[in-house]
């Protein structure tokens, strides 16, 4: 089982769209996939039309008194399940802080379902916190959607530095950055992409375009592959998934 976390310190960069769409692509290829919506806003949960409620409470999962498997809900798509968000996740940092070995909590919870899934996508809230550190410990790779702007460049480098400076905490964690919400008509986007690729050649080739098709996920409440199969953004996620698999 590979654990992939969609993560960025900055919000609004396409983390949830990435988790939902890549999970859908992976499942459509016949992989057994789980999405764990760790963001109290519950956008991934909303996209899958699941009610944002964990029976027994998210806290119980983190504490280990509730099996992660008991909180799993099937989505409408074959091989694709979800651990829904719970608004109480806004206290996740506090729960982890109270717990013994907080950094191992998410990983331990995931271990319970390791035989059931090929890939787990963790949709993380933006920020660097105890939650994100626990995610870093659990994940095999961080998928970092990055908008080609100055601010995004800065946050990408912040994350890169953090991982570099904390080798004990993150262990074998791979950072897989890619450009998200790209508008190729904007000269600024093209320039920043070139600059960032020069500075960070490890950034993935596949890019996700800025597209109203992706925004319409909120209207359709399903992954783009379900309502816009073959569209440019759907193909972009397919290409991204293919590249990620090669890097893992």
């Amino acid at each position, binding site marked *: 089982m590979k654990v992939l976390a969609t993560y960025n310190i900055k919000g609004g960069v396409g983390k949830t769209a990435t988790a939902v769409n890549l999970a859908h692509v992976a499942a459509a*290829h*016949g*992989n057994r996939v789980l999405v764990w919506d760790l963001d109290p806003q519950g956008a991934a949960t909303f996209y*899958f*039309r*699941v*009610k944002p409620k964990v029976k027994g409470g998210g806290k119980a999962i983190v504490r280990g008194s509730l099996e992660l498997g008991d*909180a*799993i*809900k*099937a989505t*409408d798509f*074959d*091989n694709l*399940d979800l651990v829904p968000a719970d608004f109480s996740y806004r206290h996740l940092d506090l729960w982890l802080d109270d717990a013994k070995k907080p950094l191992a909590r998410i990983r331990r919870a995931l271990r319970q379902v390791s035989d059931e899934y*090929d890939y787990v996508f963790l949709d993380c809230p933006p920020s660097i916190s105890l939650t994100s550190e626990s995610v870093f410990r659990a994940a095999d790779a961080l998928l970092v959607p990055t908008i080609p702007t100055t601010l995004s460049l800065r946050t990408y480098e912040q994350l890169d530095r953090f991982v570099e400076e904390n080798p004990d905490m993150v262990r074998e964690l791979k950072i897989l950055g890619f450009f998200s919400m790209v508008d190729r008509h904007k000269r600024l986007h093209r320039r920043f992409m070139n600059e960032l690729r020069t500075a960070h050649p490890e950034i993935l080739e596949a890019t996700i375009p800025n597209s109203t098709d992706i925004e319409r996920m909120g209207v359709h*409440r399903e992954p783009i592959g379900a309502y816009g199969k073959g569209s440019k953004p759907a193909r972009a996620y397919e290409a991204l998934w293919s590249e990620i698999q090669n890097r893992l």
Partner: protein
Amino acid sequence: MGKVRRYEVTAAGDFASVLAVLTDHLGLRLLSHDEGERSWLDTSTGTLGRAETTLEFRRPTGDATPSLTWACEGRVLVSDPCVSSTPPVQASDLPATPAFARLVALVDGGELVLGPTVSSQIAVLACLDDEEKTTARVVFDRSETLDGVALPMMLEVLPLRGYEDDAAALEKKLKRSVALSASSASMKELALRGVRSGHGASSGHDSAALVPSMSAAGAWRAVFQNLSESMTRSFSGVLSGNDPEDLHAFRVAVRRIRTILQDGDDVIDPESRDRFRHEYRWLGDVTTPTRDADVHLIEFPELVATLPSSRREELAAFNDVLLRHRTDCQAAMVAELRSLRRAEFGTAWLSFLADDDSWTGCGEVADEPVLRVVLMRVNKANRQFVKSGRKISKKSPAIALHELRKEGKRLRYLLECFGPLFDEKALASILKPLRELQDVLGEFQDTEVQAHALLDLAGELASGEDHSALMAIGGVIEQLGVRGADARASFSKTFGRFDDRKVQKAFDRLEPRKKKR
């Protein structure tokens, strides 16, 4: 995760009308509705089946691309288009996707063998909650073998993980709206039986989906449902009268139902049992003259062939008499089968089968495990049969053999209808000599009946001037007498083979041995 629940749709109606109930009345959303052929594949050693998975090659009607679907307990693991228009043979022929890679590993170099092929209409429906999220799926499946034998319509409820309560609520609604009976057999298993028997999954001897732990009432009900399906399938053919096999199949189902009703004391509600025994007896009786007429027509050429060639032509006129007689019988039978009595009885019977309340607390042993109840009844029937058989001597009247034949039928139908419950080897070692014995008794009975019937019908010729034909019929009746005498002469030996110690000991082994862990 909730288990897939399978039901046989026993409601009267075709695929479209049941589908309309599911969508319009129950508000299920139709996700897909496909028609075409599908074949099940497995390795020669049944690797996929043992892993509780199925691999289906689907060839849709029209130009659509064939697909391969690998599923586990009704849940699709992967479904991909198949480049080839023929089913894969080697694991390497499977699509190169991660899921199929798991299948390749499971098959482990083995070849894929083509299993049963059926023609299907499959509708997949979703039960939605107030967010329009699917909480359960329903697969409604109507299939028939490639030689046109309809399999029972099946309905599967697939609970989705985390929504098991919603699926249970849906099941309750379904049971209230559509006549269903629980089934443990998948469509693949039904197809396999249907293709093997060539008579559809429900018309065969061992067709009911039975397990030893079922309640007696549940098992009786399942057997009745299967036999009723068989009757339904042949009914239109019986009315048209084009193929004598339809009437034969119909009558076999009726006789089996009568036997199972007879042995249903303390399992079935006594009032219903009495009523339906009476009605089925009537149904059997109204079809008997036509069946006898069919037999005369079928066997007459063979009988005529035993006469000297000079006498054969003299019987051409009698063949016309037989045809006229058959037409009259058919017309009388159709009138009865279209009568109000038949309609009311048919409706009452189907309602009885569909109504759960009719099968709850309906008899002293109704809730006991079926195997125990059936074994007691089989042993009782066998004791009675053997006792009567031993009394038969050369001097016994024909009626004694006729009564013995009926007792043998009772035993045989009990064994065949509840066959899936028994140890296969023990059952086979009993059924073989029993069927041989029944053939002998049948031959004796048939020749007697035919001789009498031909004699009666010959009266029509006697009124004319063609005495040579009458003489020829005398020859035919004589031949029948010879055959009957031969059958009677072989009775003792054939009965001895059934009354053999080894065969009788096999009754003690009918209860399947528990598998060692």
